């Protein structure tokens, strides 16, 4: 393949150096709630504009890949997701940490993320042009039904109380309507307060609902105790083959969902993780402990959010349409270096684009090694006393939220969401359901409003007339079916087991009598 010759370009000292810096910065920035990859990449633009284009872009794509993965560290270890793409990982990941299985969770996250990133990188290398065309199929109707598909995850993340989960989801949808409506420029629920004009952002919501709420939860209980309830941790950071085999299909499903959702502009990792997670729960087997530290759930969410990274660059490189905020910032950097996205990029500057793609692939590979060293140290935070961890998390929440937007209002919104998240968690009202409502509400609303406009107020026939919408609707039906099926199945298994136990008991007593 022609692209192979560019692999050697990546191995120059400057390119490898940029990659190393990108990975380390990404891992650290990603792990701190509020400081995500888009911000880190934006800050790198002025620093790197004198560099050769491929070196500057390798720095940025490495930061992007490592940042998404780094967000999972704090999600798993502290239930304080560093980025919005790792919020779902905090559910099973933190439950594993609480049970003293933090290292096991981290190594599964590393394997899922590194492999997800590599597969996504190769998809970027070989499938870019055809996959870019898929992103064009998404119009108002598809955005609306994709948001509905995402909302079906509420049933899955409710853990036993669907009614409370739905209340949480509806509350999230209500919160998502706050702010200036983009379709009418009309301010909704703002009460004349400047800070509410931009609504409740995803970032303050994620940080509040998960990280700040977690800090409040840590204030309960003995300040001397630690999260994991252990004083020593395993040193084995490499996943065992048996662990990988146990999660193999969850990993594959996570990667595939990440690859697909990456191509859909504006969906990205923050939607993919929930779809992947709910799919796992719906396909759960007897014995799976979702919501109580099920490693398969973590494998799927971690696989999906890094599976997004490479493919989200496809519509950006091929069509100039970035799949997410980080891709948009990288697009800006591309243009500043005098490169234009599109067919011409592959035709006229293959030495740049293929070097960058190989750089991205190698960055994912090296990220695993660097992370393995860092993870050992980072996992020790779970041995810190709660009395120390709670204020540290709060400080990072406040600083991170403020740094992201410079808007003091976002900090108060984050704190308010933190109190909501704390209460929701305590009374089993699924904070994840609230977050899903906040993320998907605007996508669903804009999609529906645009469908109503283009369909002359006959949305149903319009939506069903589009094949890709039909495919997504089919997936919604399947998701809903599986949401309710396991219960009937579990019941049957329980009854069967009870019957079996009873018959064994009977047989035993008969044997006893006979003897």
């Amino acid at each position, binding site marked *: 393949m022609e692209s192979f010759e560019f692999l050697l370009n990546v191995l120059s000292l400057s390119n490898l150096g940029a990659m190393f810096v990108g990975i380390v910065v990404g891992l650290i920035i990603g792990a701190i709630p509020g400081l995500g990859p888009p911000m880190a990449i934006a800050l790198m633009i002025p620093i790197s504009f004198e560099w050769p284009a491929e070196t500057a872009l390798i720095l940025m794509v490495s930061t992007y890949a490592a940042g998404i993965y780094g967000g999972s560290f704090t999600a798993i270890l502290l239930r304080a997701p560093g980025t919005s793409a790792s919020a779902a990982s905090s559910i099973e990941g933190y439950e594993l940490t609480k049970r003293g299985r933090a290292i096991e969770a981290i190594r599964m996250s590393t394997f899922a993320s590194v492999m997800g990133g590599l597969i996504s990188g190769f998809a970027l290398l070989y499938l870019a042009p055809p996959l870019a065309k898929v992103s064009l199929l998404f119009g108002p109707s598809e955005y609306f039904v994709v948001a509905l598909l995402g909302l079906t995850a509420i049933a899955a993340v409710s853990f036993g109380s669907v009614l409370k989960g739905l209340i949480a989801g509806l509350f999230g949808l209500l919160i998502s309507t706050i702010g200036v409506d983009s379709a009418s420029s009309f301010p909704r629920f703002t009460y004349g307060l400047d*800070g509410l*004009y*931009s609504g409740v952002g995803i970032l303050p919501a994620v940080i509040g609902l998960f990280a700040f709420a977690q800090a409040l939860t840590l204030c309960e209980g003995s300040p001397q105790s630690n999260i994991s309830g252990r004083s020593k941790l395993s040193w084995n950071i490499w996943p065992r083959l048996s662990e990988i085999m146990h999660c193999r299909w969850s990993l594959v499903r996570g990667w595939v969902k990440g690859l697909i959702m990456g191509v859909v502009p504006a969906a990205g990792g923050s939607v993919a993780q929930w779809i992947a997670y709910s799919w796992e729960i719906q396909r759960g087997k007897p014995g799976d402990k979702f919501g109580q530290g099920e490693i398969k759930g973590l494998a799927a969410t971690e696989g999906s959010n890094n599976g997004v990274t490479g493919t989200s660059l496809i519509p950006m490189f091929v069509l100039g349409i970035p799949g997410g905020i980080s891709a948009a910032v990288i697009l800006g950097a591309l*243009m500043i270096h005098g490169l234009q996205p599109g067919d011409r990029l592959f035709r006229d500057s293959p030495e740049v684009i293929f070097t960058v793609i190989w750089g991205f692939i190698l960055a994912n590979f090296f990220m695993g090694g660097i992370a393995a060293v860092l993870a050992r140290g980072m996992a020790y935070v779970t041995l810190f006393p709660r009395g120390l961890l709670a204020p540290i998390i709060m400080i990072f929440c406040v600083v991170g939220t403020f740094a992201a937007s410079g808007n003091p209002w976002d900090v108060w919104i984050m704190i308010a969401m933190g109190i909501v998240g704390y209460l929701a968690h305590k009374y089993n009202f699924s904070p994840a359901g609230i977050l899903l409502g906040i993320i998907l509400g605007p996508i669903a609303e804009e999609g529906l409003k645009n469908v109503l406009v283009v369909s002359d107020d006959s949305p149903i026939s319009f939506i069903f007339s589009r094949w890709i919408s039909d495919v997504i609707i089919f997936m919604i039906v399947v998701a809903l079916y599986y949401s309710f099926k396991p219960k009937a199945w579990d019941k049957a298994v329980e009854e069967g087991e009870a019957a079996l136990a009873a018959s064994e008991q009977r047989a035993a007593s008969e044997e006893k009598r006979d003897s």
Partner: protein
Amino acid sequence: MNRFTSIAFAAAAVIGFASVAPSASVAKDFPSKPVQLQVPFKPGGGADRTFRLFAPYLSEELGVPVKVTNVSGGGGWVSWGQVTNQWNKKKDDHKLAVVNIPHIFSMLNPAMKRKETLESFNFLAWHSYDPGLWLVRWDDERFKNLEDVLDYAVKQPLVIAPGSLGSDDHIGVAFAQQAVPGFQTKFVTSKGDNAKIQLLLGKHVDMVAANVGYYINSILERKLRPIAVMHPEPWRMLPSVPTFEEVTGKKNVTYAGRTIATANGLEEEKRAVYLAAIERAITNPEYMAKEVANKNHLMFLKGDEMWNMLRAGQKVAEQAAYWKQKDVQ
């Protein structure tokens, strides 16, 4: 550490954040400390990119570091609310703010309930200018030129992606609806130029209303065809594309502009230092070359020229009055 101390420590961390305020100091030589350039949108957008490119050149002229900060939210008003209502000529004399035109004219929309006027801002200079442009798909046989589009729109509604309602792109269409009798539209709203290109290439809309800069690449790639520019005369980057006025005889001038403002009441000497530095930085050939690559058209205006441009922009926004349209309410 008992439970109370850990909660108290945490509370102190939160309250500590709220009480941190910039320190006030006025030195003899101005500027005497780093200057903050406040962008009203998040990192990574067009405005952020341009001013991050600009900052090192402005810093060279001012002799102190220029730090770009982002204060986003409320369509820019979280930042502009600070600039007009909170910035103090003494305490905030080392701050500059980016003010986007016509975004600030959302203050004219009664629903926004804003008290500010153009005079509420202490504008220093105009920085960049990007005229409105209408585009269709390159291979769309229905539309070869603006006449085709207007004929079509009189017979049936034209599905347009103008970004969000109230944007300069939407104002241009709203103005055309007043200028061309029977011009029927349907608006598919979206966020950002990326989404507009996707909607158009995916055949979800017939036309996008946008600005020149971001679309040059799609035009060179022969994916999108420019059909009219919303400028008084043909735009030099696209000399063969007619203006709206040339085709319809009706004036329709919209653009996205960026200006730089400072704290109200700032001493004239300090204002002059800023203005001279901005002028020299904008005309630095190295910076100009970077903006050419960035597809951003620099336009330096000051004094009356700048104010005439601002007032003309406000007049267009008032005339278009998109908030009075039926489909917007």
